């Protein structure tokens, strides 16, 4: 089990990691998800031993390893740029870690292992080829093989697939997941790609500006984000955020008295208690929870269609609600035209409330 306790690291006056604590259990696929510059790579480098934290400590299975040099930690690292040895062929690249003086594995066993890994990753036909003659996806597989071959305690992957094109990314995503499931290895990864994070991770840690703001399974975070940042990072497409005012026992879309969102009076009272009589609230709702219809129904709001986005398996429509933009998932039958008027339903049980000032979730219970 890997544990980080109160890790902080600054570069000059830029705070890269800010009092970060994290725990990765054995066999987990933990993904640190966050925008570029959040401090993910720095955190991984500290775990690897390539950087020393300014304060805090790193533990593995209870033993402190904060100052242990990288090769002794026996963690495998896979970079965004794969860093394969360009002059060696695939076989030698895979064999390299086993041939290091720390291991002194007999050549016969090296051969067995290399062939086995190559078969596992479907790269046996590439064994004799020079690394520079491989495609991006093939190189990534070799890098994966090189990381796997010495059975490290943890695999640390830094944006392992985000530089590949979309189709390749999908393939390798499945590959990672499969290897994780089959071998039960522990993986700590970092990426800004929320889709692959959700697909691969057993648990996700959302990181922004050097801090971890939420940890949970992909589903947990999706259902229950603790702040606007989290909701924004995890969704694809992103959650809708509508600025609303409290007034006259109702919740109004900001700027337009004629767009009241129907909520229970108990909800209104609870919200009032938090933000005050004339307070503002940021209302969040997932695009798939916004219902769209051409007909007017009770409690539904007017909106204008800006354009329709076709996403293959589903269609989304960009709407103007009052003066704000929201996105809704369209059901098969609905086919709105650009500029036309439609009606949307924002039903209360699908709403998330966030504070306008702090962006933190307002829990009404």
């Amino acid at each position: 089990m890997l544990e980080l306790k109160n890790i902080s690291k600054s570069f000059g006056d830029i705070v890269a990691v800010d009092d970060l604590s994290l725990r990765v259990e054995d066999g987990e696929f933990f993904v640190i998800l966050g925008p570029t510059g959040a401090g993910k790579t720095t955190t991984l480098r500290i775990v690897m031993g390539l950087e020393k934290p300014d304060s805090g400590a790193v533990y593995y299975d209870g033993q402190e390893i904060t100052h242990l040099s990288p090769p002794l930690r026996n963690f495998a690292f896979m970079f965004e740029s794969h860093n394969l040895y360009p002059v060696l062929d695939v076989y030698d690249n895979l064999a390299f870690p086993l041939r290091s003086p720390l291991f002194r594995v007999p050549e016969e066993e090296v051969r067995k292992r290399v062939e086995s890994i190559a078969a596992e990753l479907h790269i046996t036909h590439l064994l004799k080829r020079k690394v520079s003659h491989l495609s991006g996806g093939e190189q990534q597989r070799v890098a994966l093989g090189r990381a796997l071959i010495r059975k490290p305690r943890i695999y640390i992957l830094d944006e392992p697939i985000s530089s590949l094109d979309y189709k390749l990314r999908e393939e390798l995503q499945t590959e990672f997941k499969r290897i994780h499931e089959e071998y039960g290895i522990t993986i700590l990864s970092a990426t800004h790609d929320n889709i692959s994070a959700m697909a691969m991770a057993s648990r996700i840690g959302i990181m922004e500006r050097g801090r971890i703001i939420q940890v949970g399974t992909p589903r947990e975070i999706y259902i229950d984000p603790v702040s606007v940042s989290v909701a924004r990072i995890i969704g694809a497409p992103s959650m809708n955020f509508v600025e609303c005012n409290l007034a006259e026992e109702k919740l109004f879309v900001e700027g337009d008295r004629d767009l009241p969102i129907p909520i229970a009076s108990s909800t209104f009272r609870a919200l009032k208690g938090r933000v005050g009589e004339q307070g503002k609230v940021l209302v969040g709702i997932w695009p798939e929870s916004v219902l769209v219809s051409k007909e007017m129904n009770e409690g539904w709001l007017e909106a204008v269609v800006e354009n329709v986005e076709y996403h293959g398996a589903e269609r989304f429509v960009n709407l103007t609600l009052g003066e704000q933009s929201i996105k809704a998932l369209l059901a098969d039958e609905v086919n709105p035209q650009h500029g036309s008027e439609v009606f949307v339903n924002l039903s209360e049980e699908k709403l998330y409330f966030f504070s306008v000032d702090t962006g933190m979730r307002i829990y009404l219970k």
Partner: protein
Amino acid sequence: MADNDKKPGASPALVHSEEVLERFTKASDRVTMGRKTYGLSDRAFMFFFLLPSLFILLFLVGYPFITLIRSGFYNFSVLRAATPAKFIGVGNFTFILTDPFTWERFIFTGKFVILNVLVQFLLGVGIAYLLQKNFKGRSVVLTLILMPMMLCPIVVGLFWKYMFNTEWGIVNYILSIFGIGKVEWLARESISVYSVIIVDTWMWTPFMILLALAAFTAIPKYLYEAAEIDRASSWFKFRHITLPLSAPVLIIAVLFRMIDSIKAFDLIYTLTGGGPGSATQTLSFDLYKRAFQYFYTGEASAYGVILLLVIMSLSLIFIRYLNRLAAQNVRR
């Protein structure tokens, strides 16, 4: 770490044998935690490597330089080494700075440098602009153009001296074919300056061309494509894209040429010997005279120091401008 922590049916490649595991644990125990290196730190190592070079630098540059500054405050001549040097404080400096001859030389050098650099800049940039596009025989043309710069300055001065000879020089011969009378290139005071400038330009414009060409080539092609789409004319593109983006390199080139022009000696010595009279005497030449013709060593040392300060201040202005340009490029 359990040996079989892989689920049943797993590939053997991913499972360590007991033996290897044990060897590994022993190895990690052996190397101590926390200690970085044996013996010297990297820093100390670096210092010892530098020591010989530092020593030579100190001896061959540092010591003479200090001596030079010191000499400036004394009245003496190396010729008369027997006579003890007399300390005269800033006497040399005031003499030089109040001598009207010095100021004549100063103004002359100023005119010479400005004209010289200007001509070389315009020519250099112009030719580089034309050489940007790839045409047949471009590499041959480039090689030919660069040749003057490769020649030894003394040799260049000497053969141009012959070419410029009023009576039988080839330049006047060619001019006479077009019916133009003899020009006293090196003999007439008013013309001799321009002759020196012509030779210096002939020799050093390639330098300008090289740097300008490098700067121009560094500008990404897609900027010109965008400008094409934006319907910019060739001049508009040159004025708004090429020039501003190559400015840093061009400024450096101009600075180099400026310093070289102030220092100009070898060409002048071989072409005109400073003449006719003192018509082509730059500050450097004047310094040479005082140091190695009249052997006023103390005075010449002071002169050298003054000259150094002049060049340094000029360079400083340029460098500060360059720094300002660089600072503007820092990302938000």
